[in-house]
């Protein structure tokens, strides 16, 4: 999982986008040998919001406006093995004891602490700063993460979206779909750059702006750690594993953070050379590096125990008429860049 940064340059609905300017500046800023067109890429992003949060504040005078909750579904052609679903953590932990299922309404012991008179959503004391701001603080610690990343097989991406729009209307409302239908990929020196115009396709068709992903392809501890754990998961030879353990067990989480910081400055430097104004940046977004740190924790803490645990056999669920399970070798791949895309694509309609 390489270190990346994502920039978004918004544009007015009818104006031309920054794409041509960007391409031109990329071409003029780098020599031809360094500038290699690689092909195309595409993106699909669906933004959902909690339905209750869409009621105007006046509809419920006595009620404090709740923090908006989001569900974002993202699919990237450069991570074809899964789609990303990023969801605001629930403010309360729901649990329905089977006995309550028969009679009681949705008020359950787990969320009964909310005073019914107020009738508002749980004020969740744990709720820290909202993550809707586009600023990029250095906060990459997992403790601050308020959105939950789930990766699902490509076939589930559409099915789950349809499920949420069909069966979850009281709590999820589809707000926007944007796509990058025809992005271009360039290799420029140690960077890989993905450019494309962001088009809104739902509810109305319009242009939103231009998005740029800058991926650092130079040497990176983060990248090799991700690759190493992937090799482990796919069950490669033991000697490879032990070698990996030795070299990564000396790493600390702080080293990972430092690595992200250092690479972020490289990416910012690269972006600055293009001299494009008015862009929103997403690099060190909340939750970034979470999966890498988890991997590091496993590598360090687990010792021999982790080595080469084989995945469970593929199986079919015929009992419910389901289809076979698909296996994702590295479910965490691309979660960092997905967070960055989602950060800039979380439009307020």
């Amino acid at each position, binding site marked *: 999982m390489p270190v990346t940064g994502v920039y978004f340059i918004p544009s007015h609905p009818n104006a031309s986008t920054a794409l041509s300017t960007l391409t031109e500046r990329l071409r003029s800023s780098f020599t031809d040998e360094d500038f290699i067109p690689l092909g195309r890429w595409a993106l699909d992003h669906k933004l959902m919001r909690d339905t209750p949060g869409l009621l105007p504040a006046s509809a419920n005078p006595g009620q404090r406006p709740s923090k908006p909750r989001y569900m974002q579904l993202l699919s990237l052609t450069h991570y*074809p093995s899964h789609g990303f679903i990023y969801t605001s953590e629930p403010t309360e932990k729901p649990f329905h004891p089977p006995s309550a299922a028969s009679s009681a309404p949705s008020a359950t012991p787990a969320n009964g602490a909310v005073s019914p008179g107020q009738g508002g959503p749980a004020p969740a004391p744990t709720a820290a700063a909202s993550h809707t701001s586009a600023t990029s603080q250095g906060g990459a610690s997992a403790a601050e993460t308020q959105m939950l990343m789930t990766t699902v097989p490509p076939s589930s991406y559409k099915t789950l979206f349809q499920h949420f729009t069909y069966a979850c209307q009281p709590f999820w409302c589809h707000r926007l779909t944007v796509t990058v239908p025809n992005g271009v990929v360039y290799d420029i020196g140690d960077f890989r750059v993905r450019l494309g115009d962001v088009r809104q396709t739902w509810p109305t068709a319009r242009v939103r702006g231009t998005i740029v992903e800058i991926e650092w392809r130079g040497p990176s501890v983060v990248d090799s750690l991700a690759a190493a754990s992937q090799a482990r998961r796919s069950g490669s030879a033991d000697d490879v594993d032990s070698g990996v353990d030795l070299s990564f067990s000396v790493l600390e989480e702080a080293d990972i953070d430092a690595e992200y910081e250092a690479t972020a400055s490289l990416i910012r430097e690269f972006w600055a050379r293009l001299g494009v104004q008015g862009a929103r940046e997403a690099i060190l977004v909340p939750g970034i590096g979470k999966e890498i740190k988890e991997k590091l924790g496993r590598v360090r803490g687990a010792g021999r125990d982790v080595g080469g645990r084989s995945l469970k056999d593929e199986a079919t669920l015929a009992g419910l008429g389901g289809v076979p399970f698909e296996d994702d070798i590295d479910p965490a791949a691309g979660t960092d860049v997905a967070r960055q895309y989602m950060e800039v694509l979380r439009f307020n309609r």
Partner: protein
Amino acid sequence: MAALTSEEYKVLEQSRQRLVQLTRSLGSLIASLEQGDPLPPWCAAPPEPQPSAKDPQITPQSRSSLQSQANIISNNLVSVSEHLSDHRDLLSSLVAYPGPEYPGRTQGNILEQLLRTKLDPRVEDWVARGREAGTEPSPSALDLSNATSNPTAPATPAQNLLSESELADLWEWAPLEANEEARRRNWGGNFTLEEREAGIQNVVTGLRRQLEDDDGSEEEEEGEEDEGEDEMEIVGVHRKSGGGSGLEFDIAPHHAHIAEPVVPLDEILRYMTTGRMP
């Protein structure tokens, strides 16, 4: 750098045509899978004895089978692959560059595609997957080779499939081996030794009547020998009660008493749906 000879042009043109064929047949397979309703048949129906002109629904021409389409694709692939390897020297030495008259402004996308030096990342993945599938021994092949450790048809672990000759060998070897295996066994009785060791109550006979384990001499622990030795017990049939002559058959001798379900189906389904206990 010499210009291409007409012969070399022909080779290029042939490559193009073969690739066009391949894409067409792939396209038609995809189309028939996506749009065919119902899906195309698995294999072609045997030729009708008398093609009835009355039935308008049967149009075998328009609905080629999946197998025949797969065959076509496979032939196309072979021809592409043969062609590419036959002209490897030429094709690998060619370099593409745009001529001055190429409409670079309007057809920039195609140009980029033509001038690519690396494969598309997606294609790279396909190639890598293909390579992996080609080199890795599949676990099933390994199992097979372990299970049939016979000298005449050794299944090489590097191969996923047996070749024609290996298949022929296998067929030749199997009947003899089976016969020999059969001779090694002591036939007679209702159960094999393995079955007895595992407990005969587990054997699924597919029969309604109980099979007696009649090999009583060695089966001290079975405890059924007392009655089994002297008098053949006939299960499921007994003399008519009430002293009359003739026999009476048990309908389902397995079951001493019949337990009808106490929880209605609806309640079970409701529990499965919502977790509400009946």
